[in-house]
């Protein structure tokens, strides 16, 4: 192809743009998101401002107590049951409080004033309407969980909610209990800890006697269900506390990963194994140290 013709094409491609209407729509969306964006603290010198920080902490602590008192004493759900329209439940995820909001119950984690999820009772028709009206990317039945659980993942993609999990558990032929959890307000490991240890009042739960594994978000890698996040950062390094960690459990986990043909073992020594994805060529090294399970993801340079 002649160079001149090739250059002409660049000029044509530069003409591509959006319409004014699209620009207006995005402008409105940005304004709206900014209005709802959490305010952010400005950088400051700690030593110079430590008294202000200390005073603010006191205000936050006492404010927190006051808030809890005014909000009709939200209850810690790991200790007992709380009610959703005459239904009760508990789980082993700690530091969760709840507050009734209309028909639903809002869930809060570690006194964060922004709810991370909701619980409510829905009819079959309401459940189907929810599923049909959202951009659900994943639809899966969770095997061997305490109750028959249908999981959906909505791709929300907002600043504070990337994806929203929906879990539906049948209560009767017509009624379901619906749990929603927002990631990253709540880490994946915490979401699955809640659902895998769920107890519904008056409804017998099933306890599987083999290890359970789940995938996180859109990922293909499986994770043990009984993990507690220690440090999960965006730079491809994840550290968890593994409740049932043992050498046997680790080797069982490695075998389970290799049952998925998309992962191949690249190397392994002791309690550290590196897997490579046959599809995307990314690698992950999974290491067990005591009861600490570490994942180090590596994405190969895309350039030659």
């Amino acid at each position, binding site marked *: *192809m002649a160079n001149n013709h*090739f250059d002409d*094409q*660049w000029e*044509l*491609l*530069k*003409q*591509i*743009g*959006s*319409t004014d209407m*699209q*620009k207006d*729509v*995005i*402008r409105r*969306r*940005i*304004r709206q*998101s*900014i209005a709802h*964006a959490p*305010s*952010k603290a*400005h*950088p400051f010198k700690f030593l110079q401002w430590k008294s202000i920080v200390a005073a603010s902490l006191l205000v936050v602590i006492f404010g927190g107590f006051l808030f809890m008192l005014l909000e009709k004493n939200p209850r810690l759900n790991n200790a007992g049951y709380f009610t959703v329209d005459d239904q009760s439940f508990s789980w082993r995820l700690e530091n969760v409080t709840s507050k009734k909001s209309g028909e639903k119950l809002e869930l809060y984690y570690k006194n964060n004033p922004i709810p991370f999820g909701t619980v409510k009772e829905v009819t079959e028709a309401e459940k189907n309407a929810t599923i049909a009206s959202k*951009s*659900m*990317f*994943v*639809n*899966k039945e969770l095997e061997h969980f305490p109750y028959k659980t249908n999981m959906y993942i909505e*791709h929300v*993609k907002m*600043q504070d909610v990337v994806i929203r999990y929906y879990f539906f558990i049948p209560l009767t032929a017509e009624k379901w209990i619906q749990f929603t959890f927002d990631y990253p307000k709540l880490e994946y490991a915490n979401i699955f800890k809640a659902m895998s240890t769920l107890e519904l009042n008056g409804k017998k739960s099933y306890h599987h006697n083999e290890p359970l594994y789940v995938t996180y978000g*859109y*990922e*293909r890698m499986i994770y043990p269900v009984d993990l507690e996040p220690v440090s999960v950062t965006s730079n491809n390094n994840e550290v968890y506390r593994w409740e049932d960690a043992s050498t046997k459990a680790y080797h069982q986990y490695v075998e389970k990963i290799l049952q998925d043909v*998309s992962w191949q073992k690249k190397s392994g020594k002791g309690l550290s194994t590196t897997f490579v994805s046959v*599809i*995307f060529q990314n690698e992950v090294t999974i290491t067990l140290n005591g009861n600490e399970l570490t994942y180090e993801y590596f*994405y190969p340079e*895309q*350039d*030659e």
Partner: protein
Amino acid sequence: MSKDKEELVMEWYEQYYDDIYRFILFMIGDKQSCEDLVHDTFLRAFTGIERFENRSAVKTWLFGIAKYLVLDEIRRQKRKRLFNVIGFSHEIPSLIDVEQIIENRELILEQMQYIHSLKPNYRLVITLIKIEECSTKEVAEILGWSEAKVRKTLSRALQTLRKMNEKGGEIRGEQPF
């Protein structure tokens, strides 16, 4: 203060919207995702404005944010594609809307398709240099590469694109994602 920040970011929006939109469209090739990412780019600029500090040009900084978001989206689409294969996804991708360019529409769509078939790094340099007319130095800053690497990658990308044009798209630089 927050209002000032908002107005500043909205000024940037008016000034650089077209550049950022076109860059993301060429990188992602999907109108709906493109609009989402343009929104996310300016929102990130608003929330991260303290980190800007005029160390680079606003446009370069915005391209840097957009680059981070598109690469993240490409990685996500890669995963989603896997779910498509195993039947989990229900998404129908939206199409590129270039109705406003009636003349040469087919040619433009063909070229966009070729560019979108290039691997992400090739797409980045081609879009930034040939479409957005950034200098090598600016691209090096946006991508965090050396200028030599930018030049080398551009040369390879153009070579691949030329071969595609010669052979009607038979040669693909890489998988699109």
